[in-house]
């Protein structure tokens, strides 16, 4: 394509937006509605997932050692556990640290009677945190085979609930994405049908003059891409303000939920949402134009 043709094509694509204002507005509104729904859904799912991840990182498996174990063996066991892929981190808790924590959590001022004494002597342990809580059983089975480990404390119920909730969230996400996709396609097919009526004559004239399919198609595709970008930008701005206000409001008004529900910052959400939404907008605009023009190219 010659440079002058490219410039002309780009200008035509841009001008087309204003030439067919109603069609352009309908296309922008359709794309914006689809991306707005996607943005809201993505923000909700990401935050739920984030909260689950946070909860998972607090689920620990604790192992206690045989009474006559050497420090070297403890070190060795620690290295073995750290080398496992499902393990995120391992923290060694000495008997003294365990007793200090116990005193703080449960005894308070009554701890004075135990001065100089450590009833938790011999209860030094490893607290093991997992990358993926669904692998807890696998890890516990492994720990059961390790020489020098006397006892393993873990909560199957918590791990199972979190695992199952995560799975449920995946299924619900897939289902809602499917519904959103179907709604988007329905809306876009209606908008495209309107576009076809507007474009029929113009495409016919271009073809009779001797324009190649590429030359006919290009301004419409550029128009579609531009409409897609505009259609993506509007809901992104809207979702950004809504999201920011919601997390500020929720953290102020429902402070009690802070331990239960963790919000991602707008920056974290939008670092993914902006490129995905722009890509979706361009994709929808491009596809809509392509379908519109294809129907009329066989003249």
């Amino acid at each position, binding site marked *: 394509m010659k440079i002058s043709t490219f410039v002309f094509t780009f200008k035509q694509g841009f001008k087309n937006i204003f030439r067919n204002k109603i069609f352009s507005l309908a296309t922008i509104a359709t794309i914006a509605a689809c991306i707005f729904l996607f943005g809201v859904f993505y923000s909700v799912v990401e935050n739920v997932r984030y909260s689950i991840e946070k909860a998972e990182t607090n689920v620990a498996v604790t192992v206690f050692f045989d009474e006559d174990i050497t420090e070297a063996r403890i070190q060795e066991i620690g290295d073995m556990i750290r080398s496992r892929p499902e393990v995120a981190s391992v923290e060694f808790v000495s008997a003294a640290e365990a007793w200090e924590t116990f005193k703080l959590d449960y005894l308070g001022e009554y701890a004075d009677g135990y001065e100089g004494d450590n009833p938790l002597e011999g209860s030094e342990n490893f607290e093991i945190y997992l990358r993926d809580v669904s692998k807890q059983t696998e890890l516990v089975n492994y720990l059961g085979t390790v020489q020098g480990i006397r006892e393993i404390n873990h909560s199957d119920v918590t791990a199972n609930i979190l695992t199952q909730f995560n799975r449920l969230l995946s299924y619900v996400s897939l289902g809602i994405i499917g519904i959103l996709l179907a709604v988007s396609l329905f809306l876009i097919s209606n908008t495209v049908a309107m576009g076809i009526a507007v474009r029929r004559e113009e495409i016919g004239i271009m*073809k*009779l*003059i001797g324009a190649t399919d590429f030359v006919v198609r290009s301004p419409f595709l550029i128009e579609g891409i531009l409409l897609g970008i505009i259609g993506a930008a509007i809901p992104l701005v809207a979702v950004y303000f809504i999201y920011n206000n919601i997390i500020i409001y929720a953290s102020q008004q429902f402070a009690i939920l802070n331990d239960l529900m963790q919000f991602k910052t707008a920056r974290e959400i939008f670092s993914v949402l902006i490129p995905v939404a722009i890509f979706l907008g361009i994709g929808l605009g491009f596809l809509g134009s392509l379908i519109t023009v294809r129907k009329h190219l066989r003249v």
Partner: protein
Amino acid sequence: MITLENVSKSYTNDGMPALNNVSLHIDKGEFVFIVGDSGSGKSTMIKLLLRELTPTSGRIIVNNFDLAKLRRRKIPKYRRNIGVVFQDFRLLKDRNVYENVAFAQRVIEVPTRQIKKNVPAMLSLVGLPEKYRSKTKELSGGEQQRVALARALVNNPPILLADEPTGNLDPRNSWEIMKLLEEINRRGTTVVVVTHNREIVNAMRKRVITVKKGIIVSDEEKGEYIDED
């Protein structure tokens, strides 16, 4: 330049053909009227020549292009050999006169510098040099048809097809358009005019091909519009 050999075109398998075993030849530089009443097959002939349709049987050769063998991607190149004007003008209503004529050059990727020379020259030829900024909806029917003619001719095609070019015009404008077509023909372009304007056909004394129910019933040099009855 234009040859039809035993061309038939049916739109349905069992219906009557729109064109039935038609053969004709038009030489380079000729001015030819194709006449006939509605449903005679004139428009089908135009669509076949524009390669909008393909014949059910027979062979069409235009300016050395065998239309039956023409691949889809070669159709645009073929159509650049033919300028075409229609009864309803088919101008882009949201663009001005200059843009409508320039559009024909843009789509075949003529450089902008060249377009700026060609379009005013063509608007002068059709008598609209001062109207280049006007929107087409602000023009009279005659002026719109002149713009359509300028668009059809700006790429300098060897053939001009005019499908009922005076169908929407009053007698004065009709004659002005016909005079323009005659002038264009004098400059070397082969002109084929499909019409049922008896007065113009009879006055101009050109070759007249009469089509009736898909069959050529007469083909005469300096002919006249023959009544169907």
